[in-house]
Every structure is written in structure tokens, then in C-alpha cells.
């Protein structure tokens, strides 16, 4: 056929098709087609993933075929017009794979395989060319790969089928490679029977276009051959076979064969006898190896030997679930999935990362391992088939299963398309718009390929993550739900099995809670059904899942009817997760939460969890108190507000919104505001009772940890009361009124009630508990002038007068400053006295029989040690050094460093131990809901503390180890600085 006159199509048309390469014109001309034929070709090129590549490939093929013979070129041209299938296949392949285009250029005759009329080439195993030599095999392999790709790219087969065909091709390739190896080494071949077992993706019949093919080798000595000879022979055969598959020559390479999954890994012998394999797995194998065996399948070599291997191994795999520690390993695997660290390739990695292929595969394998022991139907090798079986068996929700399978297919298709271009093993999409464009078009996004693909992928990842969270838990709910008879569901036995695997110690109890939480038609039950799958997962990460689930049930029964609660949890994803963390770790916060339903609003609101400022608190408390004339109602309003603030702080502490000293500061502010409110209410009450204005001006002095702004979650409030009679008032009347106010304050705050009580402890006043509860300013002055003991001056170091009458506060402060910060420091005698008291306190106040090392307050290196060290420095030097004039321990130590009274390193050791002790005391209070100055001796409590501090719950000893280390270092400093 002589070429008819041709006219180039307009540049506009080419651009519309997607052709951007300036060489497109020239390529089109090379095809030498008449106009109608050319339009046909352009129509096909327009739908190829990369139109330029499709056209260039076609042009190259025509040129290459022409070199074989002119007749060939003519018949290709004719076929392009007459055989639309051929044209479609060629443009699809060229548009998606440069590597296969290269193959066709070197072996142009293979285009014939793509004609609709051409019978399929012989099976690889029967192909003479392939059998001849390794290069022949490589060519034959590519020839079959071309066919698989053509069917794949023209949408004739599904992604699962493509993966299965690739695995079949791999089997055949291994077989031929083995035969060649046997031919190369006839002596060795005679000494043993030999089989190749496919593992990994190949074993599961879900191979990629390009990946390592995982195998193990098994052999048996032939008759007359010794074990030794056989193993040497088998090793050489295996090595030769692996080389044939992985060598690079002018004809390229096939794929690397990886035998790393064999017993003992890379240090084990390449091939073993069947008995050798069985012996190894019987005695030495670890759990992941059994997981690998899930995918073992004979692929090539002696079929009888391969079959016997498969039978022997199969029997062992499903017993693996009986291994001790299996449950722990299952959980570890699950965490591994969840904790996979997002890399810099985030958003471009197909395999790793949350929502990636590995994520799905792990989830499926995990469920297989948990349930496959009892249910043989689950023993499928490929991910999709296993997922199908899990869904059919009710182990995975039907919709979840279908959605997950769809996501998996999408990701695998993407992976296939990505690899096909250069036949390279890549799992990360390069940061290159060209590639994204081609991929997007290959996956059907014609108009906006890059944006379209990105958003589809993002959605898929989100979907997988969403499904993943519920995959394990949703069927548990169905197990207890009242479903119509005949509906598929997890059996109670299987549900218990799964709960146990996830770390619930009492699966029966857990199922009962689930039933109680989800049964019924109420809105609450409906929302809880939605929430629980995720909540169960979060509980499983905590130290005591059973307790957390029970706490959830309690909270829900208490708060479930308040609209705040459900709305918050349903609408704010973060709120539910934060609630789970609170329930997991803190009895204190849980109890506080149950008492103040509206505090649920704090969840999911990081800003809201920040402590309120003093002014805001004082204003609110004042307003609340003034709203009520009745003192009982007024104080209740104050206490309720304190309750809410405590809740805010406790939750903030659990969720790490508050760090370090912030908890102490926040608690101090709340307490000061509460005392201020109580003082106002008590004053009003006494005035009402006495029917006249109060004849005194009063102040409440903060002492101890309150004065130091260092309150813990378990601390009482240390205070002293001071007053000044109003001129003209009798001494007795004034004293009685002040006493009445102080008593009333203490009574109102300590009374049991809905809101937690606050104990005002006045034990640090002059003469201690024997002394009068209230004193006038003058009385304090007289007492301190005459009787004061060193310990009282020491106690005053942390006195802070800020509540009550400002003038009284100021005068009190002026009174005590010279006492606590004497200008000339302390004389030797007083220093000795302070040390002696400390020694006595150490000897007497430690609880009997307790391990001193576990005492956070009085033990060596504990709070008292550090505080006394700071306080002795203050009493000796604060008169000269204004920086030391502070009520706060850490600030005092820092000032001592600045004044060169203390080494930086020593101060750091003291501060570290002091902060850790404070943190641990708070953590103990959170976990137990009861105060204690000692590290918990109960292991559960200790695991809870570890969890709160962000450590592994399985390493409860670490709590004690960390504390002892900090305390030891602090004690060494105390020995040098305090006792020296």
C-alpha cells in the first residue's frame, strides 16, 4: 500500500489529545498512516496514561518492525487499522510502560502476540526458547509479562487476577530456572530431590509486577547419596537457580530471589531436608516465622516433596496461636501498625504509614491469627481472599470488609501502575508532577489527573484508617446486639477470644458492659454504638482496659442524659479520645467529671483546659457568692466552682496540657480564690448572726505548699488567721468575732457535700495546735519577739499574705520579713538546731516498716530533703540576697545558683528530684483517687502511674527505678549542702 498524501493535524488537536512533546508530529509521520487510520490511532492515544509515550512507542515499534522486513511493517500497519484490540493494547502498554516499550523495540516480533487472532504463546514451562539458556528465559519472561500488562491495562482483568497471573508466571520462571540449574550441575542434580517453596507475596499469589520473590528450599538425598552430599548439592543448585533469576545481562533481569525467610535467616543453610525444616520450626522458630509460613506454597521442583513440605508446615502454622506470649505479640503487632512513624515520604508512600497497604495486610493477618485456629475457613493465603473469608464468617462487618477490599484494590492498582513504567520496585510516588499526571490518567482521572488522584488517595487513606479502628471492635458490638436471627455475627466465644487478645482480662464482664451500653433504642445507646468501637481500642492501649470500660459505663449512666455529654462526644472526635485517656488513667479525674457534668465540655478543647487566671476566678467566685443571701447556698456555689476548676486541672494534667509547675500554680490560684470566697461568705454569715458589721479586719495567710504555690492534687491548704480590731471595739468581742469567722470558714469548706471538701489546716500557727486559732497582728508580733523557735521562722519562709484585708496583709508581711530573712543570717547554734530538728524528723516521721526509698516526701532525696536545703540557704543568706526572698522552692534554688551559693549541677539534681516527687504524688492521686506520699506498692497502681507519665505499662518497675535515681542524686547534694 503506497502512502497517501498526508496533512498534519492541527497543533490544537494534538494538545487536546494530551500530546505535549514537540516530536509528536514527527512520530505521527513515521507511522505513515492515512488520515482516517491516523484518527483511529489518535483516538486511542488520547486515552493512554501518557499520550506522548504511547505515540513515541508506536513510532519506535513501526521503525523496529521495518528493520525486520518491509512486509512485517506493512502487516503491522494493516493490523493497526483492522484490529482495534491490537491498537488499544499497544497504546495502553506504551502509555504506561517505558520498560515494555523497550522490550518491544528489541524484540519487535512479539507485537504479534497482542493481535486478537494470535493464539496465546506456549506456557513458559513448555517454551523451547526459554529452556535453552538464561537469556532465553529472560526474553520469554518479558514476553509473558507483556501479555499480562496488556490485559491489565485494557481493563480485561481485575487487580487480583493480575497479581495471581504474575505469581503463576513467577512459578513457571522458577521452574525453568531450576531446570537450567540442574542442567548446569548434572552431578548435583542427581544427588538430591529438590523443591522450591514460594513465600511472601508470591506464596500468597499476590505478586507485584516487580518485587523480590521470597522462597525457601527443601531437598531430600537421592538414593545412595549421603546427607552431606545432598545438602552440598542442594545448596549449589539453589544458588545457581537464584543467580539465573537475578543476574543482569543485555536482556535485563527477571527479579531477585530472596531466601532470607528460611530457618535461621541468612545465617542458616540455604537448603534443608524436610526433617530439618520440621525440626527447626518444632523447636526454635519464633512467632513471626510462623506468620511467614502462612504464605508458604510449593512453587517449583519435585512436586511430591513440595506437597509433603506444605502438609507438614500447615499442621504447625495453626498451632502457633497456642504459643505462650502469643497474645502479647498480637498486641505488639497491632501497636506497630498504629505507631508506624510518618516519614518525610508521608503522603507519597503506598506501602508504609497509616492507611497504607501494610496497614491493611497487618489487620487481616492479625484477625486470621486470632480466629484461624478455630475456623479453618479463614486459612487463606492472599489478603483479599482472607478478607473475604473473614467477612463471610462474620469476623469483619460486611460493609467494612467490602470497603477495605476496595481500598486495598485501589492501592494495589496504583502500586502496579507505578512499577510498570520502568519495571522498578518502587513504593513511594516520586515528587514529580509528570509521574502524578501519568498515574492519575492511568487511574481514570482524565481532566485533572494530579488533583484527582491526590484527593482519591487521601480519601482512601482516611477510609482505611477509619475502618481499621473499627475493624476489631465493631463485630464485638454485634456479638452482643439483638440482631435478627440468621444474621451473621461473631459468636460469643470468638468475641471473648478477641477481647482477650486485645488485653481485656475479663472478657465476660466486658461483653456485659458492652451489652448494657448499646442495647435499647435510646439516642444514648445509638450514639454509644457509634462511639464504642474506637473507645474499645483506646482502652486497650491503657493499663487496665477492663476498669476503663467499667468507668465509661459509670460515666455514661451518670451523664448519659445530659445533652452536653453525648453531643460533645459524637461531634468532637478529639473529645471522645480524650475521655478515653481520662478513663484509662485517672480515677480522680473520672470521679470529678462525674460530679460536674458540664466539665465534659472541656474535652476536645485544649484552650479550655488551660487554667483560669486569678482575676477571672476571683470575680466568678465573688459573683457566685453574692448571688445567694443564704450562706449555705453561697458557699455551695463557691465549692461547685472549685469542683469544676479541679476537674479542669485534673483533666489538663492527664492530657499533658499542664506541664511541670503549672499544676501547682493552678491549684494554688483556685484555692486562693476559694478561700477568698469563703472569707466573704463567712464574714457575711457572722455579721448576719451578730446583726452588726464585723468589728475586725481579717486576713488569711497562706503557709506551706499553698504559700509556695506548690499545691499538689492531694494537698490540704495550710493557713494562719490574723486580724486587727477596729478602733473602739472591745478586745474580747473582736477576738470572738474573728474566731467565729475562722471557724465558720473551716466548717463550711470541710463539710462533706457534692463538691470535694477543702481542709484548712492551721497547724503551723504559733504554739501549733495548742495555740489560739486567730491572733491579732500585735499578738503575732509579741509572740515572735519572745518565743519564736527556729522551726517557726522556717515555716514563715513560705508565708504569703494575699487573702483578706490588704492592709492587714501588708502589715503582717512587714512583721515577718525580718524574722524569716534575718539580715545577719543564722548563728552556728541555730544552724545546728535546724539540722538536729531535720535529723529528728527523718528518724521519727517516716512511716514504720515502709521502705524509705519509696517515700516521696520524707524519704532520702524526697520533697522535705530538697525543701529544707533550700530553706536553710534562705534563712542564712536571704537577708543579704533579695533573690532568695521567695516562698517558692525552685525559685529559691535558682536564686542560690545566681548568688553562687549552690552549683548549677547540684541545683539541677535537687530540682529534678523535687519536680519528679511532686509529679509522682499527683500521679498517685490521679490513679488511686486517694492521697499517698509513697510510691504505690500495688502493681496495677504502679502501671497506672507509668502510663500517666508516658511510660510502658509493662515496665512498672521503671517508676521506682527513675524515682530512686533522682532521689539518690538529690540526696548526695543534700548531704553536701545541707549537712556539711
Amino acid at each position, binding site marked *: 500500500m503506497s502512502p497517501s498524501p498526508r496533512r498534519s493535524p492541527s497543533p490544537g488537536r494534538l494538545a487536546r489529545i494530551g500530546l505535549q512533546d514537540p516530536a509528536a508530529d514527527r512520530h505521527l509521520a513515521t507511522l505513515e498512516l492515512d488520515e482516517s487510520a491516523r484518527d483511529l490511532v489518535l483516538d486511542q492515544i488520547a486515552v493512554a496514561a501518557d499520550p506522548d509515550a504511547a505515540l513515541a512507542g508506536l513510532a519506535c515499534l513501526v521503525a523496529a518492525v521495518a528493520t525486520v522486513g518491509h512486509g512485517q511493517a506493512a502487516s503491522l500497519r494493516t493490523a493497526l487499522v483492522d484490529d482495534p484490540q491490537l491498537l488499544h493494547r499497544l497504546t495502553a502498554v506504551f502509555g504506561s510502560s517505558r520498560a515494555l516499550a523497550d522490550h518491544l523495540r528489541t524484540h519487535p516480533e512479539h507485537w504479534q502476540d497482542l493481535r486478537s487472532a494470535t493464539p496465546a504463546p506456549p506456557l513458559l514451562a513448555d517454551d523451547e526458547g526459554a529452556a535453552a539458556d538464561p537469556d532465553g528465559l529472560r526474553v520469554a519472561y518479558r514476553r509473558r509479562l507483556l501479555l499480562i500488562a496488556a490485559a491489565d491495562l485494557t481493563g480485561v482483568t481485575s487487580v487480583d487476577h493480575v497479581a495471581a497471573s504474575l505469581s503463576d508466571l513467577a512459578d513457571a520462571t522458577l521452574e525453568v530456572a531450576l531446570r537450567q540449574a540442574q542442567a548446569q550441575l548434572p552431578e548435583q542434580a542427581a544427588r538430591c530431590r529438590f523443591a522450591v517453596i514460594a513465600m511472601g507475596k508470591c506464596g500468597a499469589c499476590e505478586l507485584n509486577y516487580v518485587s523480590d520473590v521470597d522462597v525457601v528450599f527443601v531437598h531430600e538425598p537421592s538414593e545412595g547419596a549421603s546427607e552431606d552430599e545432598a545438602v552440598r548439592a542442594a545448596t549449589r543448585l539453589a544458588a545457581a537457580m537464584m543467580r539465573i533469576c537475578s543476574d543482569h545481562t543485555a536482556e535485563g533481569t527477571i527479579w531477585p530471589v530472596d531466601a532470607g525467610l528460611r530457618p535461621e535467616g541468612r*545465617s542458616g543453610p540455604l537448603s534443608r531436608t524436610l526433617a530439618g525444616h520440621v525440626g527447626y*520450626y518444632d*523447636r526454635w522458630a519464633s512467632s513471626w516465622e510462623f506468620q511467614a509460613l502462612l504464605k508458604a506454597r510449593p512453587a517449583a521442583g519435585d512436586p511430591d516433596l513440595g506437597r509433603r513440605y506444605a502438609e507438614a508446615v500447615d499442621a504447625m502454622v495453626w498451632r502457633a496461636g497456642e504459643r*505462650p*506470649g502469643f497474645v502479647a505479640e498480637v498486641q505488639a503487632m497491632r501497636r506497630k501498625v498504629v505507631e508506624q512513624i510518618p516519614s518525610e515520604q508521608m503522603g507519597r508512600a503506598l506501602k508504609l504509614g497509616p492507611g497504607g497497604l501494610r496497614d491493611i495486610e497487618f489487620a487481616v493477618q492479625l484477625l486470621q491469627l486470632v480466629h484461624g485456629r478455630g475456623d479453618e475457613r479463614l486459612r487463606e493465603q492472599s489478603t483479599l481472599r482472607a478478607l473475604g473469608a473473614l467477612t463471610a464468617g462474620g469476623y469483619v462487618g460486611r460493609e467494612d470488609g467490602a470497603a477495605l477490599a476496595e481500598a486495598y484494590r485501589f492501592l494495589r492498582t496504583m502500586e502496579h501502575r507505578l512499577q510498570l513504567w520502568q519495571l522498578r520496585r518502587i513504593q513511594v510516588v516520586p515528587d514529580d508532577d509528570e509521574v502524578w499526571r501519568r498515574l492519575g490518567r492511568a487511574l481514570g482521572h482524565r481532566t485533572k489527573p494530579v488533583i484527582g488522584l491526590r484527593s482519591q488517595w487521601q480519601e482512601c487513606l482516611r477510609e482505611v484508617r477509619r475502618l481499621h479502628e473499627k475493624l476489631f471492635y465493631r463485630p464485638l458490638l454485634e456479638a452482643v446486639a439483638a440482631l435478627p436471627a440468621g444474621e451473621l455475627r461473631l459468636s460469643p466465644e470468638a468475641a471473648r477470644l478477641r477481647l482477650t487478645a486485645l488485653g481485656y482480662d475479663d472478657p465476660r464482664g466486658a461483653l456485659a458492659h458492652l451489652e448494657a451500653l448499646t442495647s435499647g433504642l435510646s439516642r444514648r445507646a445509638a450514639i454509644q454504638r457509634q462511639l464504642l468501637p474506637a473507645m474499645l481500642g483506646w482502652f486497650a492501649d491503657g493499663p487496665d482496659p477492663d476498669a476503663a470500660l467499667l468507668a465509661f459505663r459509670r460515666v455514661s449512666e451518670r451523664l448519659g442524659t445530659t445533652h452536653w455529654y453525648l453531643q460533645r462526644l459524637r461531634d468532637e472526635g478529639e473529645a471522645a479520645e480524650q475521655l478515653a485517656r481520662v478513663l484509662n488513667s485517672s480515677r480522680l479525674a473520672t470521679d470529678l467529671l462525674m460530679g460536674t457534668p458540664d466539665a465534659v465540655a472541656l474535652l476536645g478543647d485544649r484552650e479550655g483546659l488551660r487554667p483560669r487566671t486569678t482575676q477571672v476566678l476571683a470575680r466568678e467566685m465573688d459573683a457566685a457568692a453574692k448571688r445567694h443571701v443564704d450562706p449555705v447556698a453561697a458557699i455551695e456555689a463557691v465549692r461547685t466552682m472549685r469542683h469544676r476548676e479541679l476537674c479542669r486541672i485534673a483533666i489538663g494534667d492527664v492530657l499533658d496540657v499542664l506541664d511541670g509547675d503549672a499544676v501547682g500554680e493552678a491549684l494554688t490560684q483556685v484555692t486562693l480564690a476559694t478561700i477568698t470566697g469563703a472569707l466573704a461568705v463567712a464574714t457575711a454569715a457572722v455579721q448576719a448572726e451578730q446583726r452588726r458589721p464585723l468589728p475586725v479586719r481579717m486576713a488569711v495567710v497562706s503557709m506551706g505548699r499553698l504559700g509556695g504555690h506548690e499545691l499538689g492534687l492531694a494537698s490540704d491548704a495550710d493557713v494562719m488567721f490574723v486580724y486587727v480590731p477596729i478602733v473602739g471595739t472591745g478586745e474580747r468581742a473582736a477576738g470572738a468575732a474573728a474566731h467565729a469567722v475562722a471557724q465558720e470558714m473551716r466548717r463550711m469548706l470541710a463539710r462533706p457535700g457534692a463538691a470535694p471538701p477543702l481542709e484548712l489546716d492551721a497547724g503551723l500557727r504559733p504554739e501549733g495546735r495548742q495555740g489560739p486559732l486567730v491572733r491579732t497582728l500585735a499578738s503575732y508580733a509579741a509572740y515572735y519577739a519572745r518565743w519564736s523557735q527556729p522551726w517557726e521562722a522556717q515555716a514563715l519562709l513560705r508565708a504569703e499574705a494575699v487573702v483578706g484585708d490588704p492592709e492587714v496583709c501588708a502589715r503582717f508581711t512587714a512583721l515577718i520579713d525580718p524574722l524569716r530573712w534575718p539580715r545577719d543570717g543564722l548563728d552556728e547554734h541555730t544552724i545546728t538546731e535546724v539540722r538536729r530538728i531535720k535529723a529528728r524528723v527523718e528518724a521519727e516521721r517516716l512511716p514504720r516498716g515502709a521502705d524509705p526509698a519509696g517515700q516521696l516526701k520524707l524519704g532520702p532525696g524526697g520533697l522535705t530533703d530538697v525543701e529544707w536545703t533550700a530553706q536553710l540557704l534562705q534563712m542564712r543568706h536571704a537577708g543579704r540576697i533579695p533573690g532568695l526572698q521567695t516562698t517558692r522552692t525552685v525559685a529559691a534554688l535558682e536564686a542560690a545558683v545566681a548568688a553562687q551559693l549552690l552549683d548549677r549541677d547540684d541545683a539541677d539534681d535537687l530540682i529534678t528530684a523535687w519536680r519528679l516527687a511532686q509529679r509522682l504524688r499527683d500521679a498517685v492521686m490521679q490513679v488511686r483517687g486517694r492521697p499517698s506520699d509513697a510510691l504505690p506498692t500495688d*502493681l496495677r497502681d504502679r502501671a497506672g502511674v507509668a502510663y500517666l507519665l508516658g511510660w510502658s505499662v509493662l515496665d512498672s*518497675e521503671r517508676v521506682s527505678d527513675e524515682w*530512686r*535515681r533522682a532521689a539518690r542524686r538529690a540526696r548526695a547534694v543534700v548531704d553536701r549542702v545541707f549537712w556539711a
Partner: protein
Amino acid sequence: MGKQEDFVLRAIEERDVRFVRLWFTDVQGFLKSVAVAPAELDNAFDEGIGFDGSAIEGFARVYEADMLAKPDPTTFQILPWRGEGPATARMFCDILLPDGGASYADPRHVLKRMMSKAADLGFTFYPHPEIEFFLLKEQPAAGAVPVPVDNSGYFDHTAQGLGHDFRREVITMLESMGISVEFSHHEAAPGQQEIDLRYADALSTADNIMTFRVVVREVALGQGIYASFMPKPFTQFAGSGMHTHLSLFEGDRNAFYEAGTEYQLSEIGRSFIAGLLRHSAEVTAVTNQWVNSYKRIIGGGEAPAFVCWGHNNRSALVRVPRYKPDKGQSTRAEVRSIDAACNPYLSYALLLAAGLKGIEEGYELPAEAEDDVWSLTDGERHALGIEALPQNLDQAIKVMESSELVAETLGEHVFEFFLRNKRAEWQAYRRQVSQFELDSMLPLL
């Protein structure tokens, strides 16, 4: 139940084992044993055998007395000295808390934790001990002078030598328990023997040393003599040490080896040795834990009393043995201070910690000591920067007290207990009026 547990249960059936001894080691390095009937093993594997930890030296705080001993099935062996007929077997145990977490008081856990730190850095640690001990004619009695079984010397082959037979029996038993022996010979002092174990990972080696001490004592009893690992039973003869060759592997490769360098020693090897040296005084209270240990160290001769290293120097604390051509895998460092009466778990954990510290911090290896350090004057040693190891237990305790490396490696609990225990030992010792004082002063004063 897993494969290894299955294997143990089958072996018990087949070999007619009537008792299984569960072994573990207290903080001082004494072997503890609890016998269980095979029927209880199922439970032991699943949950462990409960015992009162407060009864074991150094294990528990009073309030958390409950502990679990969980047998490690890979250590299952039949005890060969129990003779024919119904057999007795042993397994080493890990000590757990009732919640299943490891107890920090368990010396085995201390070593495991350090090994996993090494593994995080990509290393496996292989110690290889040369264990020395004395054979005495009789069981020790209070006030009696010990008498060695023979009067032979280093490498002596005695025709009817009791020691010869003795070593053969010991080695047979060890091999039957899966413990390979590399080498054995008569040592320099009368009655003194040396047996070298083949190298294995640190945990197996420490387990093997515990087993070794039992086997040696059992065989001696069977032959009517007495074996002792006391570091220095005779004033006039050399003491018994446990020189240990150390090497680190990265996968299959000896990380100490580098072709073409001095002594074929890699940078990693040099830093490791530098770490051993720099921290040697801190770990001495553990590697040489008895008051008697120091009598060996300060005894002169080949005892390593000074912190230095050398190549062919038998007075150095760390020796880098001669390199054998084509044996790159054998490059190693020999620590010569440690003695056989130590707790091997704690000692090896500390040696590993010291060496790794050297690697992590990139310590520089000081110059090699080429002279016999004992023959130098104090001034010369000072000029060369060679310091002495602690001269007695008290000094060793003092150095250890301020060692963060030792505290972190042992964990605070073991650290604290160990120091308390050793202080008590030193207090008790220094109150004693010794034979030396009586002999030299009573006649004169």
C-alpha cells in the same frame, strides 16, 4: 504452649525426669534452686512459680514479696551427676512481678537489659571466660589451713594426677549439658585448675558459669575432695581469677577487627577498651566483690592492679591477645581483673556497659603499657598516667557509690542493695583480729 516448652515436656516424659530444678541467682551471685514436679511445669511455663521474694537476698522490698520464677525452656538440661535411673533436670528462670513485668532485682534481667541496649546499637556481646579454682583435700573447717590436692605446677601433666581425672569428669559433664569447653590445664599453684569455656552470647555464658560452679563442686564431692572458687585462699600462691575475653559482633562480623591496623584492632575495639579502662575502678566492687578478692589483685605477679592495657603484657588490666592470621573473627580484649566468685550476670552487664560507653562517647585509647607495671616505681607509673585499681573493698565501694554508669546499669534497686550489702561485709571484716596480727604482734606487744 510453644515448641520449646513442648520439647521440654516431651523430654521429661522420655527421660523419666522426676524432678525439675528451677534455678535463679541472687544479687550476690549465689545459685538458688526450687524443685518442682513435672506436673507443675505447665503452670510454671504459663504463669511462673510463685515464691516469697523477700526471703532471697536482695530481691524484694518487704511489701512486694510476691514474685514469680518463670523457667526459660531453652536452658533445659538433664543434671548428669544425679546418675542413672530417674533423672533430675534444671532450667534457669527469669524473675517476674505478679503483673508479668520483669523484676529489676533479677541479675539475669540486668544483663538482658544491657544486651538489648547493645542490640539497639547493632552489637552482640560475646564473653569467653577462663575459670580458675582450687582443689583441696578436705572440706574447709573453721581455723584449719587448707591443703591443696597436689603439688604440681603450670601445665604439669601428672601421670595419676587427681586433677587430670577430675578435669576429664568435669568436662564430660559440662559437654553433656551442652556447655562446650575449649581448653583445660593445671594452673601455676598447687591444686589449681583452669577450664576455659567456649564463647557464647553473654546470657548463655553467665548461665554456663553458674552451672560450671555447681558441676565442679559436685564432681569434687563425688571424688571425696573439695573445690573452691575463693579468689585467694593461700597467701603464698597465686589466686584464682576469671580472665574473660570480650568481643562484639555486628551481625557476622567481629566489630573489633580491622585489617591493617595495629593489632588488627578497629576504632570500635579501641574505644571499647578505653571504656573498660576508664570505668574499671567503678565496676571493681562488682567484678571483685569480696574482701578476699583484693588480696589477689594486690598480690603482685600477674595480677592486674593497675589500670592500663597492653599487647603481650601479663600485668595489664586489659590485654589484647596476639592476633592469629586469617582469624579476624578472633580479635578480642581480655579483662584480667574479674574473679570467679563474682555474680557473672552483673559483672558482664557492667563490662559491656563500660565498653559501650567508650564507643558511644568516642573515648580515646591511652598509650599501651609496654613494661611490667609491677616493676615500675610509683613515680614512673604516675608519669605514665597509670592509676591503681581500688586496693580493697572499701575503696571499691567508695568509687562505685558515685558511679552513674554502675547505678544506671544495675538499676537503682540492685545498686542500692549491693552497696548496702558490701558495706556490711567491710564493717564485719575490719572488726576482725587476723592471724597476721596475732603472729606478728602478740609476741612483741
